[in-house]
């Protein structure tokens, strides 16, 4: 089997087309990574400057009412892992910033594709990961498709099988040779990428960066090997290399070009994300009208007024020894958060359902699974964005509580107007965020990785079946 593998590798190396295709792939991957590196460096520098300046603006906003300070708020932006040089994931389409302010949960805004025409979908694939999954996948399938059918056309297969070599061993050997040919351009690139991400990682995060890169590359490799096996199986079933080429090209187009868009379409049909304006208005309505046994805001406010009067033995709230407007803001925020949390839980359930639909669809189109795993290990998938948003929301609520406490302490009775200054704003420390570890990413990506592994074994089974039925 090894000698067949060696011979196949030699044949592939002698074939100028393979060398050119492999070189081109390597060149494209390297160029994409260099461009990715430049974008990552520029983006991170912008992000750090943005976060620092936004916090400085918060601190330097001058004397004003604490609620107006909270309404002014501050911005935070999601950091990226070093693997984003290779896999920017959702970056072009996910908002870069979260505006943390007084009235509502933060949602992402300012996606690069909203402003930058060159980030729009359909302008080719700029990331190394996308090129590897798309073109690498095509390369693997074409490599496989031309292997057995060409030997059948030229009569080589008849000669070899006439020597008594078992078809299974012969195809196994060919596959090993093709795997070696596929790995030739990929191994140096993988080493280079791991070194790059390790070098770019912050102190203490080097192993995490290496782990994430290795996991992403590993998942992609499983995908490519699966496609190679399918290509060889198709080749073994086809009478001509023309036929094999048409079949693998159709499979590639259906699985890698058409399936992702069809998946988005189906996902949005089955589990649509609510319209942002409708989502906000439903929360507003529930805030005003209440839900279940919980009364709406006006009734809650009346109850609060009564309880404060009762607590301090007042006939009018104007006599309250604390700032009632601050207490009202506290109650309003607590109620807003309660209502928002209910709807946010539904929204998260919708995202989960969308993810489940994609997972089911990726059983039929493993490209979706390969990409999901790649996005996830790079920390650039929606789950990572949501993790960041959850941390930012916790921070937002904490500084809103501080601002409301400042109103309680700074006003009396029903008075509203007051001014606070820098010492109050400084009660909110700068926002810090800890990226989840590789284990978290692995747990999130296990369905995608399982599907890829299942596909690989399925493709190998198909290959074994094809080898069993192989006729010269």
């Amino acid at each position, binding site marked *: 089997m090894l000698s067949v593998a060696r011979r196949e590798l030699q044949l592939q190396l002698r074939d100028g087309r393979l060398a050119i295709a492999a070189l081109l792939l390597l060149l*494209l991957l390297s160029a994409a990574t260099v*461009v990715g590196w430049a974008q990552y460096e520029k983006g991170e520098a*912008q992000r750090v400057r*943005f976060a620092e300046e*936004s916090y400085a*603006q918060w601190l330097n*906003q*001058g004397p004003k009412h604490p609620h107006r300070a909270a309404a*002014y708020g501050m*911005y935070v*932006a999601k950091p990226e892992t070093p693997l984003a040089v290779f896999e920017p994931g*959702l970056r*072009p389409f996910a908002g*870069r*910033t979260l*505006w943390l302010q007084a009235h509502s949960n*933060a*949602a992402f*805004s*300012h*996606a*690069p594709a*909203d*402003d*930058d*025409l*060159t980030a*729009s*979908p*359909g*302008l*080719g*694939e*700029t990331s190394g990961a996308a*090129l590897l999954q798309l073109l690498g996948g*095509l390369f693997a399938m074409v490599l496989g498709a*031309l292997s057995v059918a060409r030997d059948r056309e030229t009569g080589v297969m008849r000669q070899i099988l006439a020597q008594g070599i078992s078809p299974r061993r012969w195809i196994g050997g060919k596959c090993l040779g093709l795997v070696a040919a596929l790995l030739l351009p990929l191994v140096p690139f993988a080493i280079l990428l791991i070194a790059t991400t390790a070098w770019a990682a912050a102190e203490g995060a080097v192993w995490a960066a290496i782990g994430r890169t290795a996991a992403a590359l590993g998942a992609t490799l499983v995908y490519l090997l699966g496609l190679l096996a399918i290509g060889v199986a198709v080749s073994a079933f086809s009478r001509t*290399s*023309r036929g094999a*080429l*048409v079949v693998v*090209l159709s499979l590639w*187009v259906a699985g890698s*070009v*058409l399936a992702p*868009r*069809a998946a*988005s379409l189906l996902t*949005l049909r089955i589990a649509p*994300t609510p319209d942002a*304006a409708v989502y906000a208005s439903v929360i507003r309505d529930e805030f005003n009208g209440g839900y279940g046994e919980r009364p709406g805001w006006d009734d809650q406010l009346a109850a609060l007024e009564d309880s404060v009067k009762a607590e301090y033995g007042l006939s009018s709230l104007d006599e309250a020894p604390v700032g009632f407007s601050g207490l009202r803001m506290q109650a309003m925020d607590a109620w807003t958060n309660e209502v928002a949390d209910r709807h946010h839980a539904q*929204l998260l359930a919708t*995202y989960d359902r*969308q*993810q489940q639909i*994609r997972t089911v669809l990726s059983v039929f189109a493993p490209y979706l699974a390969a990409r999901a795993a790649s*996005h996830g290990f790079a920390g650039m998938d*929606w789950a990572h964005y949501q993790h960041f948003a959850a941390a930012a929301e916790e921070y937002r609520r904490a500084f809103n509580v501080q601002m409301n406490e400042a109103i309680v302490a700074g006003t009396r009775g029903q*008075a*509203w107007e007051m001014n606070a200054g820098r010492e109050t704003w400084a009660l909110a420390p700068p926002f810090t965020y800890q990226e989840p570890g590789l284990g978290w990413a692995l747990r999130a990506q296990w369905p995608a990785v399982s599907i890829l592994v299942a596909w690989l074994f399925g493709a190998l089974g198909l290959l074994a079946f094809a080898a069993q039925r192989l006729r010269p």
Partner: protein
Amino acid sequence: MSGARLGRLLVLETRTFLATPLSVALIIALALISGWAVFGGTIRTLETRAHQAVALEQHAETWAQKRAAFIDLQAGRIETGMFVNPARADLVVMSHKAPVVTPPGALAPLSAGPAREGNDIIAVSMASRYGQQNETIENPTNRVDGPLDLIFVVAWLLPIVLLVLSYDVLAGDRETQISPLIASSGTPLSKIVLGRLGVVFLATFGVIGCIATAGVVAAAPLDQLVHNLPDLVVWLGSLGLYIGFWLALSASLNARLRHAAAAGVALLTIWITLSLVTPVLAAQWVAVGAAAPDRLTYVLQYRALQNDLAERSAEVRETYYGANPERRPVRGPFSEYEEYFVETYYPRQVVLDQVFFPHAREIHVRQVAQARRLRLAAFLSPPLMIKRLTDDLAGFAPERRLAAFDATEQFQAAWRERFDVKLASRRSLTLADYDDLPTASPVSEAGAVRLVRAITPLGGLLAGFLLAAALAWMRLRRAGP
């Protein structure tokens, strides 16, 4: 070759085409995908129109309710409260939002464009709109691949269908040794290739052209149909050139290569280069020469200005009153909320917009610069060219967004002008203030402007087709069996 012989050849090749299951299956698949894409586009366009109509109706209805409340107040049927008083401009107009809509473009069913949320409705109020966040709760995973619209099918899938239908148009016969027999029949090989590719052209153009036309007609209001016709004709012309380009490439390779597989691989390589690689190069060229607007800096600038104006609020207020003494309050505030919103918040919004206007407009100006450069860069890639052309005709040209920005600016100025003095001076509203509101016309663009913009990509497609066709013709004339 006479017309009759060409006709007979076409009929013969059509029969052969229809007798090939793969060809028929591919055309059916293309029709199904195109139909699905256009159906989705038509629904999307109709929904956008409906949303816009609802937004305009809601605005009118809310305003009518406020007007009715004012009449009730005058008749003594309702009482005023701290936050309820139809005669107070700050309570009536500060929170009121009037929509400015940009109706879907002529070919909207064919392209979803950047597929943002919002249905092209811009809400205008007395407050500044430059700080609006454009927040979204959409899962970006659903945006990352772009929509399954017709332009995706045309730009990226159609060439593969053409490739499969034509990669062995002559090389296949050479492989099976039939070509000498065909060559001996008296009909030149070049004419036979032309006949075969003509059938593929008619089949693909017919299917996509009919489906696209049906979608455009179904989605357009009757009064718009005639206005949309030139756009449709230009698009169908560009579709013909685009299909012609790929078929000419196929003919040119078939004239030379002896193996169908080699022709297929070569065509696939060209497809990858033109569809996946050169658009990236074009995008890089655009990014270098026409950088995208720097939104993060924009946000920081806006907030810095907010801080600055907040700190100088007394100066801002006096400048605002100084510009028109009629704005000075004629009475004291009813509450500290009214005092803040009328004397501090609103003057700051007006000054904020005056100072920040150039920065806000710059975002759109930069996008226009990007689009212009992208139209030139698209000469590198026919798929990019037809995508750009379709997006432009579908209403997603940045020039149109700039026009919408300017129109919104004008409308907001008129809206503010209407209530400015009443709001600032705390004079009571009258029934006349409720009537004859400024109205925002839907943002429209002259057909000639759209078509002039289409000249560059259309010229590119024509040039690409002519080059490929000339190359194919030269090679086919010398092609042997």
